[in-house]
């Protein structure tokens, strides 16, 4: 955090000054470790074993925050008797189909109850009493089961979540943590004591994480393990608690909320999948469930369609629901790159991104670029993605020839943040408006300009078309005001549309005002209220020192300006703060309202003792203690009965490439991980195969303070290039001795995908792993580089394969295996020969598929 989010880290230091213990868990010793009370170096890719050990410590010693657990989580819920755990099946859950590498999760549900996934997993068969079919292709099928499960509040029922959890994590002992993670038992106990003694009524523990937790074949389950631990300890929805994602780009949160992602629409509404005769009603019913705030999903969808299609969207035509294109599977970024190589994808827009060096298996990316018909790149500088046809690494090796690459390339210069109005959504869900300071020069334009005018031009060219497929384009609401000499669209007008309008045309103030009859419009329901009272709330800048520590009058947080979500859980079942010290929001019995330091994330006048009618819908079906208002049962899920494709509980699996066999189960790696067989995407053999010894070392990738992502905004700047002038790798003195590497000399790092050269940094910051009676070395590889710019070097992404988490399709970039040797890498065809020799020695030279 001190390295990649240094200004955010000032608050960790403030907490430390006030007595907080800071623990840093990372394979490397970094600036964060230097300032922490304790650094816990663990083997890359073993966090579930570590966190699972902490969960087990809490459960075995009954250190959980019992009142919180019983009030706010599904710990007492009874699970279907057909469910079988990894304890029963040696690393698999019930329902695994080895033919397809997927689970049929029907047995994972609650007994006699049906829960809906919170958002987006339309294709998940619903769990429950066995009435659903794989694929859930019917959607509107009639049976409505109760969303709320049977509960055993004594937590003694053998099939209650609490007991299942206890059995599941029992083998995550300190001894196993030591064997798997390489963390000494004394260190483990120090961590366990620190977090358990610092949780409860009067104290909270927070976890901050970044892509070190997400870029794994089990990334989602990493976060899940942390969620289980934090819920057992009562650290969610409370000040000083939480699981805090430290995201790496100015608006990466915004680009998820208003998604440039294939599987969702604005506000986490799923993109519809292809189903026969599915109308809006069936779509909503299949995904939303009828209880909790997602029970209002129809209002959110109809208001979005009204924002997009305006008067064309009517009740008679299902509000143009049929205008939405349909999904049929994984259409994620890596799948698309393989389809580019296949030749089915013809055109590609790359906007402020640099996949030619910034995405896993960079060669695969460039092979995709080279097989397009046309490519549009919009950026500040001439990045590698725009120049691959001219000077990419494959030109040097002879794999590609400029004169034979048919890709037509348009490079369009982009405007900077100082040259345009608009909002970024930061990692805390805060929308912050930035004002235009100057005009861009020459052909530089904002992306708002480009997409508005591109859409305008396409609509002009299609005007008069009678082809049905052009109706959605021509019916689109696309009349934004423009200003200035460049005809720049007014960003403020777009933000107003995102916020939404009521029947009288005035801006809405809250998503609770949205209706499903077409009288309201809203471009992103969770952002509704950012223009409340006709005021751009995101541009509020009341100085921090002139307001409370919550700083509610600086910018605007979704939803409804709440700074901590699910904050109903900061009070006890009766609505009283858990302690005076940790008071945040509470029930005021005199006023009969929720109040406090933040906007309560709860219906303002629903009393703590409220019990819903049995047939109540949406938020009215939630009790006064159901703090997790987006969930159909109002509870935080320790055990996930539906919504995940790789199991209802986290399980330690080894990374896809690992020198170690899994000591916890026979199942080596995540059985549902996504693999892509391709000659340019070869995988290393498993550790049981002697060929694995060809790649004996573990490597991990990371960022540096002085560079940004794939370098487009940093490698071209003199200050930053001077601070970090070239690509390097980090190795321990022991590994340097073993392989003859010298400090500041050159090394070549090799995998079955490619080889890169880097300056050697010999440092004790990266320690050899000693576990299971072996010593295994780790290599550290920062990933920012490429051949263009002022600070140059090979791209770390050359080394990685594409192998993905099955829930979210994110690549395992944080851990793989490699070899390292002294000296620079060969040039030209010799580079290919080097990699081929490694493939031959490992016995993977001829394999096309995993």
């Amino acid at each position, binding site marked *: 955090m001190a390295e990649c989010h240094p200004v955010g880290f000032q608050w960790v230091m403030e907490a430390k000054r006030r007595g907080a213990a800071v623990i840093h868990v990372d394979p490397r010793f970094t600036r964060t470790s230097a300032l922490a009370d304790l650094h816990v170096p663990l083997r890359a890719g073993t966090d579930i074993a570590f966190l699972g050990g902490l969960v087990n410590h809490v459960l075995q010693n009954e250190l959980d925050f019992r009142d919180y657990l019983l009030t706010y989580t599904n710990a007492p819920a009874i699970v279907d008797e057909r469910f079988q755990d990894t304890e029963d099946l040696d690393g698999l859950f019930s329902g695994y189909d080895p033919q397809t590498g997927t689970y049929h999760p029907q047995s994972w549900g609650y007994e006699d109850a049906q829960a809906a996934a919170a958002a987006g997993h339309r294709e998940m068969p619903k769990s429950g009493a066995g009435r659903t079919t794989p694929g859930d292709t019917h959607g509107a099928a009639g049976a409505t089961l109760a969303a709320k499960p049977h509960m055993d509040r004594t937590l003694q029922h053998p099939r209650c979540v609490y007991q299942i959890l206890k059995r599941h994590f029992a083998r995550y002992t300190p001894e196993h943590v030591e064997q798997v993670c390489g963390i000494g038992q004394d260190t483990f106990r120090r961590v366990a004591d620190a977090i358990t003694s610092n949780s409860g009524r009067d104290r909270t523990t927070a976890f901050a994480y970044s892509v070190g937790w997400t870029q794994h074949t089990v990334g989602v389950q990493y976060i899940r393990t942390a969620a289980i631990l934090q819920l057992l300890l009562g650290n969610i929805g409370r000040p000083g608690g939480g699981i805090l994602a430290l995201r790496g780009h100015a608006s990466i949160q915004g680009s998820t909320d208003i998604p440039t992602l294939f599987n969702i629409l604005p506000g986490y509404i799923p993109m519809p999948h292809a189903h026969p005769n599915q109308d809006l009603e069936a779509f909503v019913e299949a995904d939303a469930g009828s209880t909790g705030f997602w029970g209002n999903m129809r209002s959110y969808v109809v208001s979005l369609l009204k924002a997009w299609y305006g008067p064309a969207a009517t009740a008679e035509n299902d509000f143009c629901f049929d205008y939405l294109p349909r999904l049929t599977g994984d259409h994620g970024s890596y799948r698309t790159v393989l389809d580019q190589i296949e030749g089915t994808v013809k055109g590609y827009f790359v906007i402020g991104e640099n996949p030619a060096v910034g995405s896993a298996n960079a060669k695969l990316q460039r092979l995709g670029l080279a097989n397009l018909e046309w490519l549009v790149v919009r950026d500040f500088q001439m990045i590698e993605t725009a120049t691959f046809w001219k000077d990419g690494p494959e030109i040097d090796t002879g794999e590609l020839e400029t004169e034979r690459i048919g890709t037509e390339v348009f*490079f369009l210069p982009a405007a900077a943040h100082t040259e345009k109005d608009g909002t970024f959504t930061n990692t805390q869900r805060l929308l912050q408006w930035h004002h235009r300071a100057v005009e861009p020069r020459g052909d530089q334009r904002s992306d708002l300009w480009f997409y508005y005018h591109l859409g305008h031009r*396409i609509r002009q060219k299609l005007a008069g078309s009678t082809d049905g497929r052009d109706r959605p384009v021509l019916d689109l609401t696309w009349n934004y005001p423009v200003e200035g000499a460049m005809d720049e669209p007014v960003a403020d007008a777009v933000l107003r549309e995102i916020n939404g309008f009521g029947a009288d045309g005035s801006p809405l103030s809250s998503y609770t005002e949205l209706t499903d009859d077409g009288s309201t419009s809203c471009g992103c329901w969770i952002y509704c209220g950012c223009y409340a009272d006709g005021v751009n709330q995101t541009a509020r800048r009341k100085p921090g020192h002139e307001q409370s520590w919550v700083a509610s009058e600086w910018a605007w947080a979704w939803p409804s300006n709440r700074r901590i979500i699910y904050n109903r859980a900061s009070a006890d079942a009766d609505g009283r703060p858990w302690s005076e010290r940790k008071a945040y929001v509470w029930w005021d019995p005199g006023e009969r309202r929720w109040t406090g330091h933040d906007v309560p994330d709860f219906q303002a006048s629903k009393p703590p003792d409220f019990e819903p009618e049995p047939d109540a819908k949406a938020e009215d079906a939630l009790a006064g203690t159901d703090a997790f208002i987006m969930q159909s049962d109002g509870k935080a899920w320790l055990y996930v009965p539906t919504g995940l494709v790789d199991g209802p509980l986290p399980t330690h699996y080894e990374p896809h490439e690992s020198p170690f066999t899994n000591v916890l189960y026979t199942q080596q790696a995540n059985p549902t991980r996504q693999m892509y067989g391709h000659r340019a995407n070869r995988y290393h053999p498993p550790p049981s195969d002697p060929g694995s010894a060809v790649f004996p070392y573990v490597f991990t990738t990371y960022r540096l303070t002085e560079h940004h992502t794939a370098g487009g905004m940093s490698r071209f700047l003199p200050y930053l290039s001077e601070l970090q002038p070239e690509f390097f790798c980090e190795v321990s003195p022991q590994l340097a001795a073993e392989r003859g590497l010298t400090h500041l000399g050159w090394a070549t790092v090799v995998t079955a995908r490619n080889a890169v050269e880097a300056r050697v940094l010999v440092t004790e910051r990266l320690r050899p792993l000693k576990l299971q009676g072996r010593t295994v070395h780790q290599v550290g590889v920062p990933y920012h580089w490429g051949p263009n710019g002022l600070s140059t070097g090979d791209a770390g992404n050359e080394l990685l394969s594409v192998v993905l988490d099955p829930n979210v399709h994110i690549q395992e970039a944080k851990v793989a295996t490699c070899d390292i040797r002294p000296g620079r890498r060969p040039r030209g065809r010799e580079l290919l020969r080097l990699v081929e020799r490694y493939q031959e020695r490992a016995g993977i030279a001829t394999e096309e598929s995993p």
Partner: protein
Amino acid sequence: MGRRTWIDHWPVVRQLTGSDPLGRGAASKSRHSDELTARTGTADRVVKSICPYCAVGCGQDVYVRDDAVTQIEGDPDSPISRGRLCPKGAASEQLVNSPSRETTVRYRRPYGTDWEDLDLDTALDMIADRVIDTRARTWQETDSEGRFLRRTMGISHLGGATLDNEENYLIKKLYTALGAIQVENQARI
């Protein structure tokens, strides 16, 4: 310090007679540096902004003179950053004023060996034609089971995490209307 005479320009005199006997401060200051003024002091205006790098969202004050950005500093009013910027944020003046920033459209024709110039309006028109043509050639109205798809699998997109919400909104809205579904960004990378 009072009015300087010629002899006061000798640092050693100031060091011996002034309040800086070690010669590490005022005594060693030259007339040149004495006469320098900060760019922040001569700006025509200061514009409120947000750092474009990571997602902490530090406040920035953008100093502008003669319609050019002259300096970018941390915004002390921000309750998030309290005036601080990291090395990247502090370098963002170089980001916006970089001499290697591209200012014109560049075009590489199929099988071409070098960049060519292209008018922005022509480029926009050509891209619009490519979209329309590709969409028509790759349109999928239904799948083999008769389920309607209404999409193109011929047009893909990557990018969004460094863009404004308003930009992403138009991107998603336009692509969805066009039936282009392979729209992705850094959040999955």
